[in-house]
């Protein structure tokens, strides 16, 4: 994780688990003693965004930024806080950018293009083979292309986060790994992480492309 570039852009389709990955990643950075900042740039979805966990994340030492109105609330307005530029400029910070949904949501990134110099950022694309739009190699590549074309940035790593929420099995992850491998070969982008629930991560084979990244479900209430 610490070998990743200081600025990590997290993209992925709705339901890919991008927000869970981004939140878990930001928390882990804080736990490693880094100055961790997460910017919720999702202007597409009205619910289940990282800003909802503002208080919990702040307590864990993560600086949470989102909209410019009141930070935590549930507004689907394209109003991003000016403070997002601060950790992008301040090199003491490790930044995670949690970007909303599809190419429409990713357009926000173009605003910060000046900070995304080649070699100074990582852009991770979260793949979930159980989602209709990214269940095939062609679908996944189309998704990556459409996002790259509006943001002007390049995906530098894939994250296999194939899941079925609490019903996720090892088979789900392995099927997603196959898909990710083929996308990786096709585009020449490495698989950086295999992200899955802690109880599934324990059962995965030891040797896999990409680092196994066990996650907790921060975004999903216990009754969901």
């Amino acid at each position, binding site marked *: 994780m610490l070998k990743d570039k200081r600025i990590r852009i997290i993209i992925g389709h709705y*339901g890919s688990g991008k927000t869970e990955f981004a939140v878990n990643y930001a928390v882990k950075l804080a736990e490693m003693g880094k100055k961790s900042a997460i910017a919720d740039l999702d202007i597409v*979805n009205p*619910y289940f965004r990282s800003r909802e966990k503002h208080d919990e994340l702040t307590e864990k030492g993560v600086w949470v930024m989102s909209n410019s109105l009141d930070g935590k609330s549930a507004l689907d307005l394209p109003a991003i806080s000016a403070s997002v530029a601060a950790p992008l400029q301040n090199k003491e910070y490790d930044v995670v950018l949690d970007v909303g949904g599809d190419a429409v949501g990713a357009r926000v990134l173009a605003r910060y293009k000046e900070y995304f110099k080649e070699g100074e950022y990582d852009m991770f694309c979260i793949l979930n083979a159980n*989602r*209709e739009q990214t269940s095939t190699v062609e679908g996944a590549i189309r998704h990556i292309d459409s996002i790259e074309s509006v943001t002007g940035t390049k995906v530098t790593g894939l994250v296999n986060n194939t899941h079925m*929420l609490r*019903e996720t099995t090892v088979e789900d992850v392995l099927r997603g790994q196959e898909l990710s491998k083929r996308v990786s070969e096709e585009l020449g982008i490495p698989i950086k992480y295999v992200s899955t629930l802690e109880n599934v991560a324990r059962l995965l084979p030891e040797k896999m492309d990409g680092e196994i990244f066990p996650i907790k479900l921060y975004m999903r209430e216990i*009754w969901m």
Partner: protein
Amino acid sequence: MAKVLMKGNEAVGAAAIKAGCKYFFGYPITPQNEVPEYMSKELPKIGGSFVQAESEVAAINMVYGAAGAGVRVMTSSSSPGIALKQEGISYIAGAELPCVIVNMMRGGPGLGSIQSSQSDYFQATRGGGNGDYRTLVYAPANVQELVDYTMKAFDMADYYRNPVLVLGDGMIGQMMEPIEFKETEKMDLPEKDWATTGTKGARKPNIVNSLRLQAPELEALNQKIEAKYMEMEEKEVIYESYKLEDAEIVFVAYGTVSRITKNAIDLLEQEGIKAGLIRPITLWPFPNKAFAEIPATAKALMSVEMSQGGQMIDDVKIANEGRLPIGFYGRSGGMVPAPQAIVEAAKELLGGVK
């Protein structure tokens, strides 16, 4: 069929198309925008049509027109948008036409918020439109049920020639869950020989209308549609009863809140308090008969809703027929009840009635 992961709002669209819906007319409003988004993308692929109307009032009247032509048609919106559609819904019921309407409820009154709520229970079950009409109302609690009841809604609408409402809330619309599209038995439905499809010179014109100026004629229509509502009350009631055996307190909750309430029931069990749940799946007709299953051990009922003073509680009172004391716990404005808060409210109620 294998399970796929879908967001509630997308799943509604996919289910409607599976059920043969080819036409969708709507106007955007959060938190249900993924429904029109999905339909706009998918309907042209199957030779159907999606129209983003200039308003909700226009959208429901487009639904009225398409339903009159005998095709499967749907609209969706969220609370204030559904409020705007009430006039059209009354007309559609009066003209005896089938259609499916989806409401992903948000906080009110007025424009309210974009967060989840259940404060359109009155609107859904009492109707905001004029006249003696009813709509069958399904209240799914998870995305799988949202799929199943959206598909069933089309059959029911055709069978009864009446609008059917699928009542979800913002959370279920936005929530991602594993689902499968089950092959269901085809319902035996009558020919749509009333549809305005052109006479081709072979028959008398069919007329779609809700205006009946002669009193005997209008009363006859009312008697006819009332007979349908009585049939629905007899045949279409669906509910779930959960852990009613030996329950000291019986919750009544629907939709997503029933899931939170089940969590509260588990917590109460850990404290040695037996609690059960009646979950109406059809809100109209309301499952009055479920209340006959309440055991003699029950000391109180409690309605749990995402509504400030409670709306379903009125139906709970009717079904209870004055037998047990009824408590209420609710949050509103987009606030979601927490399991522990329901536990505390239940303990307080039981303490008071012991």
